[in-house]
C-alpha cells in the first residue's frame, strides 16, 4: 500500500506538496521520542507522532522512512514543512490520536516490526 492509498482510505491531510506519495509503506512505527525512533524505526516505515519539531524531518531522512503522520490535529512547524519539502519527506496529518490511527493502519495491513 502506498502513502497515497493510505491518505485516501484514512482521510489523512497531506501537508507537503512536493514529497512523493507513491512510495510503498513497509510498516509503521509510533513514538514521540526521536531518540527511540532513531534507535528502532525501520526503513520504509510510516512514522506516527505528535512531535512537530524540524528534527522529525532529519530523523525521517536518517532512517529512510516513508513518511510522517502528525496526530491529534497537530500542524507541522513552518520550518519543519520547509525542510520536509526540501528533503522530499511527506508529512501527513489526522485529527485522530496515535492509538486510533495505529489501529486503523494495522487494520489496513500496515504492521510493526
Amino acid at each position, binding site marked *: 500500500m502506498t502513502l497515497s492509498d493510505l491518505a485516501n482510505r484514512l482521510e489523512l491531510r497531506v501537508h507537503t506538496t512536493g514529497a512523493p506519495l507513491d512510495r510503498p509503506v513497509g510498516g509503521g512505527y509510533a513514538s*514521540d*521520542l*526521536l*531518540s527511540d*525512533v*532513531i534507535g528502532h524505526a525501520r526503513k520504509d516505515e510510516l512514522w506516527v507522532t505528535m*512531535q512537530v*519539531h*524540524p*528534527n522529525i524531518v*532529519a*530523523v525521517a531522512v536518517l532512517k529512510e522512512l516513508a513518511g510522517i503522520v502528525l496526530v491529534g490535529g497537530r500542524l507541522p*512547524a513552518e520550518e519543519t514543512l520547509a525542510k520536509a519539502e526540501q528533503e522530499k519527506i511527506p508529512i501527513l496529518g489526522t485529527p485522530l490520536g496515535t492509538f486510533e490511527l495505529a489501529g486503523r493502519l494495522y487494520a489496513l495491513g500496515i504492521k510493526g516490526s
Partner: protein
Amino acid sequence: MGLRRVRADLHIHTCLSPCGELTMSPRAVVEAARAAGLDIVAVTDHNTTENAAAVIEAAAGTGLAVLPGIEITTAEEAHILGLFATGADLAPFQAEVFRSLPDIPAKMKYVDDQVLVDAADYVTGFSPRCLFGATLFSVQETVGLIHRHGGLAVACHIDREAFSIVSQLGFIPPDLGLDAVEVSPRMTADEARAAFGPFGSLPVVRFSDAHKPEEIGSAATVFLAASPSLEEIRKALAGADGRRVLAT
C-alpha cells in the same frame, strides 16, 4: 581584575518543585551549598522562579552567590535551564511562562506539595499551578524567551533518557543558540561528548540537578572568572576576555 576559580552548581531545585524534597528550604540550600564549597548556585525549579528570591535573601552575607533560574519544560518535553542575574526583575518572564502552562489543577495524589517559602524557611503558600506540565513553547521559542529576558539557556541533562533535548529530539538542533549543554552527575563531560557529542562549539557543563540537600554540589563546574556572577559565567561560556570553563 584578577581571575579566579569559581565553583558553580547552577541546577538546584527547592521544595517548590513537585519533585523537590520538602527539606530543600532556602536555608538548607544555602547551608549545603556552602558545605559543598560552592561559590555560586542557581535556583531552578520547574517552570517557576518564585522561590529564588527567598534563597538569594537567605544567602545574603554568607559569601554564596545565588542566581535566579528556571527549568522550563518545552512543548517537546525537553528541559531547558534559564539562568538570570541576581536582582533581575523576572515578573514579566514568569508571566509569559505561566500563561503557557496547562490550566489544570496541581493537586494530584502522586505529586508532592509545591511549597512557596520565605528566606527564613516559613511556608508562605502553595503553587496552584501544574508546574510539572509542559509549556507550549518549542525549544527554539524557549531559548528565545530566555535570551529576550537577558538569561543564559542551557540544555539540561542531555545524557538522560527522558526530558533531555537528545531523548526528545534525537539530537541537538543546530542554530538553536544555546549557551551550553549540561551533563548530569551520572556521566563525565568526556563520556557525554563521546556518547552524544561532539556538540560543535557548545561548552559542556555539569551540575547536580539536586532535589535533596545532600545532592547539592554532587556535580559542579569550575569557571575561571573574575567573580561569581551571571555576566562572568556568560563570558566564561563564550571563552571571552580570558574567562573559560576550567573543569567539570
